[in-house]
């Protein structure tokens, strides 16, 4: 059992928790993820590490309430326990030799992008951050990004905060104006990452994308998280849990990844409805 050391509501659908897991806290690096189960009958879900406090033995996770399991997790209060918490999994974000980086985050993906931005800042790199949300009330982590970014642009789809439009608009402007990033790191919805790759392509800037496919064990056993890479005209299978979650954005078959992400859409909708009814009864 793993204790919830703190809980904070970041916006109506996004919650932050710190979980006591000293072994994971001692090891986790930006870009890695954990797998948790809320209770004894629960589903295993992967969540990216949003920060650690090795001294307190805690790992920070930030999750969007999208399904039955994240809904259930959100009912847990500070001081309560979750059943399982395993990690850190995946390969940490590659930081060596990068002195000028652009971080592009979308929605709850910003929770994953933030510790990556912090890490580059800590290593002395010049950090440009572009973060996007649907609207002002979904904005998260603005202060944290400000603290670790040399430049920060906030975008909203509806213009209710920051600039109106999506994250590729300022990215294209910067690239057009001659900014030469060593790399662009993008984390967010697949469709957003696909467009970030498309925006960067004409300039030949490397793009790292963070993939978040459906996963079960997360340890390199089940193969459910496989992703198709297009390399030299050939299709290769890679596994997000052990080969990723970061990949070269130019190699990802985004369309397939998007389709695979919808594999259980119908079952997930039913599970969510059942869970919502349960939560209503509990209230």
């Amino acid at each position, binding site marked *: 059992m793993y204790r919830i050391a703190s809980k904070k509501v970041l916006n109506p659908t996004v919650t932050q928790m710190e979980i006591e897991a000293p*072994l994971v806290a001692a090891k986790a690096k930006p870009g890695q993820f954990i797998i948790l189960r809320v209770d004894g009958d629960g589903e295993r879900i992967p969540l990216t590490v949003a920060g650690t406090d090795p001294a307190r033995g805690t790992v920070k996770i930030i999750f969007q309430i999208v399904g039955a399991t994240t809904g259930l997790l959100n009912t847990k209060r500070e001081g309560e326990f979750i059943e399982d918490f395993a990690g850190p999994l995946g390969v940490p974000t590659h930081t060596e030799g990068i002195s000028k980086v652009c971080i592009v985050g979308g929605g709850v993906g910003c929770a994953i992008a933030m510790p990556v931005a912090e890490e580059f800042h800590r290593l002395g790199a010049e950090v440009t951050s572009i973060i996007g949300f649907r609207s002002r009330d979904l904005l998260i982590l603005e202060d944290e990004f400000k603290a670790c970014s040399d430049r920060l642009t906030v975008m909203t789809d509806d213009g209710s905060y920051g600039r109106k439009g999506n994250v590729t608009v300022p990215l294209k402007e910067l690239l057009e104006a001659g900014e030469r990033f060593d790399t662009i790191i993008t984390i967010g919805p697949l469709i957003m990452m696909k467009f970030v790759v498309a925006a960067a392509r004409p300039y030949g800037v490397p793009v790292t994308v963070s993939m978040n496919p459906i996963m*079960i064990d997360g*340890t390199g056993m089940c193969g459910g998280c496989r992703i198709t890479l297009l390399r030299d005209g050939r299709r290769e299978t890679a596994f997000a849990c052990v080969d990723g979650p970061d990949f070269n954005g130019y190699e990802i078959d985004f369309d397939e990844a998007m389709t695979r992400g919808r594999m259980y859409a119908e079952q997930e909708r039913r599970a969510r409805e059942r869970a919502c009814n349960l939560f209503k009864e509990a209230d």
Partner: protein
Amino acid sequence: MARPNMRPDKNPMPTQDPAVRAHNFDEVATGYTYEAALDEAARCLNCKNMPCVSGCPVNIQIPAFIARIREGDCEGAYRIISESSSLPAVCGRVCPQESQCEMKCVRGIKGEPVGIGRLERFVADRHNEGSTAPAGRPEPNGHKVAVVGSGPSGLTCAGDLARKGYAVTVFEALHTPGGVLVYGIPEFRLPKAIVARETETLRQLGVEIRTNVIIGKTLTVDELFELGYEAVFIGSGAGLPNFMNIPGEGLNGVYSANEFLTRSNLMKAYLDDPVTPIMKGGRVAVVGGGNVAMDAARTALRLGAEKVYIVYRRSMEELPARREEVEHAEEEGIDFRLLCNPVEILGYRNPDDPRDPKNGFVTALRCVRMELGEPDQSGRRRPVPVEGSEFELAVDTVIMAIGTSPNPLIKSTTQGLEVNRRGGIIVDEDGLTTRPAVYAGGDAVTGSATVISAMGAGKTAAAAIDRALSAKAEG
């Protein structure tokens, strides 16, 4: 001793009716009655040279335990089995006895061999039904050993060492101990309650099992030594599933057998309204011919599939699965498409509506017929495609059960640990790796193999660890 029962055939194993069991997850084989066990035990000739024991990877004293059954001393029989095996109720169910102990049985020359596996299961089940007394804890010898993975090799190694007084900690990456026994082998072949019972027996012996610790990630092998463990046994099991690298493997509805079985077994997706989803029903093709393929096919059937195919590129003769599993599968109505090889998985795409929810889902498996040519390196006749013989099987789900490649996590974080060309950890005859005091066994060494061979490897390594640490203590 009374005269042996010279009837040429084994007492049959009672099973659930195929038409009934195809729709439930209850155990297929229901086990011998006491009378059947006594009758079967009387078929053993108690040969002096014990050929059956030489066929057992963990050297269970088979004639001795069978003699105890004849005497009506089932607990005595259990004690004899336990001296050699940490998992009697598991082995009695999933061991391929027909190619091990029973293959060597003298009775098999003129009839059927003694039903050794069935008797082992009978003894273990009877023990588990009766006894609740915790196993006694041996005197601690002051040495600490770490075991990586709680599958058959790890549990065996842990059990053998704990019985000798070692303080053993088993590190398991998943949330439940048992490894392939819980995520891989389905409930209808090996009830999970039995695995839980066997791991509980090990806990009573003093073995500590720590779940949610991924060696190679949460802790490294080097850190285990820093924590005071004097030897490490790696039984991390099979790794990433193999795919065929044919077009369409990224479509929705394509699973590895590992994923499909993990969803159903470990995550209990076979229940109604499961929290972990799985594709149920429809038409299913399982590619491969091993035990895992049989498990996947029979699981799909029980999940409500209207039609399940096994697609295998060689013939029935080369099919590597256990005979008994193949027979059970056939009885349940699995359709074997032999000498067929998949060449492409076809999917749905609505040209007019990119948002059609059916887009990207499997519609068919395109196969080519094969014929057997000259023998290949494995000695089996090589299957070669018959030109122009392609055909399609209309299916909704395709499950690839064509083996696995060893997990890279430990190798990549352990300096000096060498692996072979296929990624299997290199070990000597004691199970010792290229790193001092680091041993390995099971699928992490051999690639996909059997539960009992993994147990044999765990046993060998436990004996070697005991010798090494005893010598160190004396030296």
